[in-house]
């Protein structure tokens, strides 16, 4: 069973995006930058804004947006 945690609370260096709960325009922007459901991302700066690496790019996202990005947490 997988559970989810929002990106702003995510701890660790890498993870997978489970889903996004954001306004349409915002979600499209993120997806076009390579942050889509199922994508593996690396965290490179915590805090606000945070910096994630995915799809060959480095993207700064504000904390309020990170709240709408749900990460998959694998139970061990």
């Amino acid at each position, binding site marked *: 069973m997988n559970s989810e945690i929002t990106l702003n609370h995510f701890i660790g260096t890498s993870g997978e995006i489970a889903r996004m709960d954001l306004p349409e325009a915002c979600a499209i922007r993120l997806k076009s930058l390579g942050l889509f459901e*199922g994508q593996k991302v690396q965290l490179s700066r915590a805090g606000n*804004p945070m910096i994630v690496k995915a799809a060959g790019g480095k993207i*700064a996202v504000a904390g309020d947006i990170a709240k709408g990005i749900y990460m998959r947490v694998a139970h061990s």
Partner: protein
Amino acid sequence: MSASVDSAASESSDASGKKSSGDKVVAMLGNPNVGKTSMFNRLTNLLAKTSNFPGTTIDRRVGRVELNDRQSISLVDLPGVYTLGASSPEEKVARDFVLGENEEVPDALLVVVDATNLQRTLFVAREALQQGRPTIVAVNFIESARRRGLEIDLNTLGRKLGCPVVGVSARTGEGFDRLKSQLAILLAGPALPLLISSGSPECPPTPAENVLTVLTDDESCGSCRVCPYADGHQWASALARESIRDGSVVSDETADRVDYFLTNRFIGPVVFAAVMVLAFSLVFWFAQVPMEWMDSGFGMLASFVSGLLPEGDFQSLVVDGIIGGVGGVMVFLPQILILFFMLALLEDSGYLARAVVVVDRWMRRVGLPGQAFVPLLAAHACAIPAIMATKVIENRRDRLAAIMVIPLMTCSARLPVYAIIAAMLFPGSPLSAAILFASAYLLGMVAAFVVAFLLKMTLLPGEASHLILDLPPYRTPSLRNALRYAYERGWMFLRDAGTVILMISIVIWALSTYPKLSDERFEEQMASRSVAVEQIGEEELDGLRAAAEQEHAIIGRLGRVVAPVFEPIGFDWKISVGVMTSFAAREVVVSTLSILYGLGPEPEDESTLKDRLSSATYPDGTKVFTTATCVSLLVFFVLAMQCLPTQAVTKKETGSWKWAAFQFGYMTLLAYGAAFVAYHAVSAFT
């Protein structure tokens, strides 16, 4: 500065995107920051703005390219897009043009991708290919990729994409001949049927060897197959992997480490402050010596010319009006050159995006989005391109807030005024002068933040939208670009000095020379002020006479009308006139003061403008430029809205004169109020 009107005008005049002379139209498409504009500049020999920050180009721009002896095309540079499906204004410009939404579709697409980051940039290439138009892909940054040991297999890439692929470098010019010849072939041939999967299950993939064929089985069963974005990105990363011959993945550990410091919660702000202070104090330091040379050069020129010409009105026109007025402004050329050079280097380095990460939180607090940082910084050169650059801010509230405060930043047209005041307040102490400079910059920034906050509390309520920013890689700035850019801006400044300022100077000279004061009137005046003309020295008499002549002339009469308005902030009538003329363009105040204080008895030595101003006195012998007046003048110029072209751009970008009028009104009141406070505060202490 007023020079920028012209650049804005020429920018829009060839931005129509219309075909000229039946040339075929080729549109450039690609992610932001992949070097489209750099390639465009190289191909067309134009000098459109480039920088290492996504979203530099905000409007389309057309240029002519000779492909060979017989054929030329209209090349259209477009804003970068991450996807053709996006909705921000500048992305719509690109999208509409490529899709032919408002006019004919372009004859071909020139898709630009980044060799150092194919994975990221091929996504848009795929969207472009899906349009089914004749397409050519340029793999830019090829030299940079090679340096990092990354070799791209262009043949494989071309085969998989099903279109011609050329490796190029906008920096070195490599591959451009081939790009041109390939473009000519592409335009000559029949439109290739480009067959690409639409990504949806209903439409089966097309037979050409491209797109999905590079997806291996385990990749194609991802969780998100129906999502075109996931699909496209997986396709792109698979294709990128296949086309990198060397296979070695670029190590970006160094960049990560640098990023860690630059965006660190504690170190980041310190670095930020250091970079800003360093950049602006270098502008000041480096410019000092050449400015002094130019200043005394113009002084020598003036005394040389006045020796050549017979004494009289014509001599006065040339020496006081033209050399004094235009020269007074021209000496600031070194500062302008250095400012633009440094800004160009900074923009090219990739640091600015990190600065955005650092300042975003503070900016949001006053209701400005992080994206407004780059326009705010650009406003230190000139408010006009800065206001236009706010197009990258999607939210209207945020954009308005940014536009309203941008002119508070110290633009290059204010530098002459600051420099004169610094020289008067701190002659022979460059350190204090530098501090004064920095304070003026800082005052502008602080005022912008305060005003933004007040706007958020009143006229523009709401939260600034949240940051999503693609961080560009660090790159070695191009010295050539920075030099070209500085040269172009310097040239614009000179052209301005030679036209607008020359004209205003002549007008000011005429207004302050005519009508002439007759000898009888002068004697009457002296008598009425009970000055015993016979007893004072000749030199002093000349001085009195010059002052009386000026007051008698039209400008003196105008001055008397406006002087009461500015008296509370410590300006004499000449400064008041200078301030009034500077509402056309800020730097004009320097030429006006130069003329008004320069007219009169021949200075013995080659005196500089600063000397003339510092020694100016009221009729009762007190100094005009006291510390309080200097500070008040400085504060006024930091905060006042004195730039008609900026007003026009504000109107255009906000869509109404209301905002332009508001901007003018609040800035003028703010400037006057702050100058008043500064004048009285400083007067109390000195």
